[in-house]
């Protein structure tokens, strides 16, 4: 008989997410993703000055702060047809890159790795063997016997203290945990080291953003980072070199430890390349603009339908109609009044809560579509697009990772393996490495441009009478983020954020086609419905925007098991 399991995370900060699965014969047969993302921002923004919208939007979410600020200024600039000085583009790009690396590191090591790495098993590892293993996998300097021994001691005393914190309710000893104690211990060592490096990259964001969390240096039309190489209080060479040192320090960790860790996890869990593909229409946008108009980008993006990279269509500019015209949101299965599929400029938000109806309305999330189809967004979508667009660093890190996986797994693992749960995780780490390269390029571009005598950072926005419409997109850590603004007589008339987790966590659309989370769960193995670790693995591989604990509700026994998302 089919058994229903409900994974119900609760957080008010980034929005609730609840996953319902029907499990039959040890596999998920049907899934529903139900959530409450932030859908009320227009209530606050209507009637406000478009120049300050970004200060509000970056408070939407505790994880994705910077990204909502960036998308907001881009949307208003687009509505006004503005150009942005290239210094401002490079400074924004460095912030985007730093934020992305921080986010990908935190997700990989501190939120997602613990679905695959058994902390309790790591305590049993032989430090000497672990060091040997680490040194065989990469040249990372932090794999010495002493490093591993220290990390294990630290873990032991932490576990002994009883305050388990993030390790509090993992599925330790679960039959789906397959790594040896030494591989587990190596991952734990890097987990601890990653805490140091993510701090470093956050410092870079703080230097440029003037504050973190919640940067303060943006403006519609540019940035508020005065550049004067002769002043000690502005952006000068000393600060620029400090930034470079921070990037380089993190760069080494990402390119040696992190890339080899994801390859090892991927190889030891090679069976997971067969699960979790789900929706294989992939949408991503180009980012890291290199000119004032937003027509040249360091990182490509675009649309790949049906997983067929031969059918890739690039998105080319901030004005690109292929993007602007093909985004819709449907509310057929969402708790809003009516049954429509509309363009973001034309949307309204009138709540109509109906309770959870399996075949009716069951989510606060609207269901976005691209060319009338559900689309998966995120690092995998972006990495595939960059790979097919011939982006050098992407190709290098993808090929290198697949080669390492193949040699550990002793079987040929190629690009098709990326359409999977484990592939999404690998793509995130690849993107993190790509972002490190990008930051170094952006740093150089900024220094060269300043060196040429250009210190311009801001163009003043002018608001004409009448109505203007604009959209701003950003390839955020969780995927395509777009803000859509309608301005009338210099005030905001309508504002919509179509966020990455909406694309991925959306419910069935106007044609009843399931969203990416829902589709990816079907066929997932579930060894023990009481401990659905496998469901968490697939949902977590999307990096759901939830820094939260979740309730497990087993409806048959009415028993509530509390589970913490790690």
């Amino acid at each position, binding site marked *: 008989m089919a058994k229903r399991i409900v994974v119900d995370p609760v957080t008010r900060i980034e929005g609730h997410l609840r996953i319902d699965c029907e499990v039959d014969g040890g596999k998920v047969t049907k899934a529903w993703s139900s959530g409450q993302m932030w859908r009320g921002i227009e209530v606050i923004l209507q009637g406000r000055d478009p120049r300050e919208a970004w200060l509000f939007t970056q408070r939407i979410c*505790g994880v994705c702060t910077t990204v909502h600020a960036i998308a907001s200024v881009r949307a208003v600039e687009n509505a006004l047809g503005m150009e942005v000085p290239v210094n401002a583009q490079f400074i924004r790009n460095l912030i985007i890159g730093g934020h992305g690396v921080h986010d990908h590191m935190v997700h990989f090591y501190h939120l997602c790795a613990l679905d695959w790495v058994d902390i309790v098993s790591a305590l049993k590892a032989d430090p000497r063997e672990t060091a040997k293993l680490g040194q065989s996998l990469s040249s990372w300097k932090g794999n010495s016997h002493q490093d591993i021994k220290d990390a294990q001691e630290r873990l032991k005393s932490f576990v002994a203290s009883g305050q388990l914190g993030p390790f509090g309710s993992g599925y330790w000893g679960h039959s789906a945990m397959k790594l040896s104690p030494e591989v587990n211990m190596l991952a734990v060592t890097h987990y601890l080291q990653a805490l140091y490096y993510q701090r470093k990259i956050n410092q870079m964001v703080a230097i440029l953003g003037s504050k973190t969390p919640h940067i303060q240096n943006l403006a519609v039309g540019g940035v508020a980072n005065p550049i004067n190489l002769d002043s000690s209080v502005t952006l000068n060479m000393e600060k620029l070199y400090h930034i470079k040192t921070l990037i380089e320090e993190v760069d080494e960790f990402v390119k040696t430890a992190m890339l080899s860790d994801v390859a090892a996890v991927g190889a030891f869990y090679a069976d997971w390349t067969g699960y979790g593909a789900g929706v294989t229409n992939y949408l991503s946008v180009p980012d890291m603009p290199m000119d004032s108009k937003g027509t040249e980008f360091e990182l490509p993006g675009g649309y790949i339908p049906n997983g067929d990279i031969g059918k890739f269509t690039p998105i080319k500019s901030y004005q690109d109609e292929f993007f602007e015209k093909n985004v819709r949101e449907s509310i057929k299965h969402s708790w809003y009044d009516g049954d429509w599929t509309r363009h973001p400029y034309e949307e309204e938000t009138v709540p109509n809560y109906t309770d959870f109806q399996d075949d009716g309305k069951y989510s606060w999330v609207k269901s976005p579509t691209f060319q009338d189809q559900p689309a998966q967004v995120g690092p995998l979508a972006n990495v595939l697009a960059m790979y097919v667009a011939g982006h050098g660093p992407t190709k290098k890190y993808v090929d290198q990772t697949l080669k390492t996986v193949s040699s550990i797994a002793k079987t040929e693992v190629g690009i098709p393996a990326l359409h999977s749960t484990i592939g999404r995780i690998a793509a995130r780490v690849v993107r993190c490495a790509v972002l490190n390269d990008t930051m170094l390029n952006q740093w150089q571009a900024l220094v060269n441009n300043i060196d040429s005598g250009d210190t311009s950072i801001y163009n003043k926005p002018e608001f004409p009478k009448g109505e203007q419409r604009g959209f701003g997109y950003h390839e955020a850590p969780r995927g395509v983020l777009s803000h859509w603004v309608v301005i009338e007589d210099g005030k905001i008339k309508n504002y919509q954020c179509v966020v990455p987790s909406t694309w991925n966590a959306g419910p069935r659309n106007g044609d009843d086609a399931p969203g990416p989370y829902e589709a990816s769960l079907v066929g997932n193995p579930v060894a023990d419905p009481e401990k659905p670790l496998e469901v968490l693995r697939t949902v977590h591989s999307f990096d759901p925007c939830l*820094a939260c604990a979740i309730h497990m509700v087993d409806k048959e026994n009415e028993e509530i098991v509390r589970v913490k998302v790690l």
Partner: protein
Amino acid sequence: MNVLILGIGNILLRDEGIGVRAIEELECRYTFPPEVELVDGGTCGLELRDAIGRRDLLLLIDAMRNGGPPGTAYRLDGDEVPAHFHTRISPHQLGISDLLATLTLTDSLPARIVLFGVEPGDISTGLGLSQEVETGMEKVLQAVYEELKSCGLQPEAIPADEAFRLGFWSTRQNGKEAVP
């Protein structure tokens, strides 16, 4: 002595934003000794590690669900704080409990933590605090002042007629214009 006053919360969900609002009020009302730093932590978790790490004293201000009437102010000291976040009364406990755990793992937990909370009433979408929570916040501001005074770090009040008195979020929600 090295003190951080950290306010956390989401200012777009009314009373949820009490921590951030309290920081802004403190900054508008007082000048602080150099040993004291104030941070608006928003809804962030791990990103705050650098700000919190290795402090002698952390004064944390947050919305706190404890079953009392809206506006009730609470104070927790020392060992009670991690325990509070463990049993999840605050909306931010998860980010913060992981944060405290990673600080423990890296030996950089503040020597002492005092948590000031206010029971939220209205957490719907919107700006500004409910009247009860405004009142509760005043109690917290006074308690923070006393706490600093007891450490010999008494803040100095900014005269009421000086210009810079309303914070960004408070000017907007009260419908008042900031003094230029």
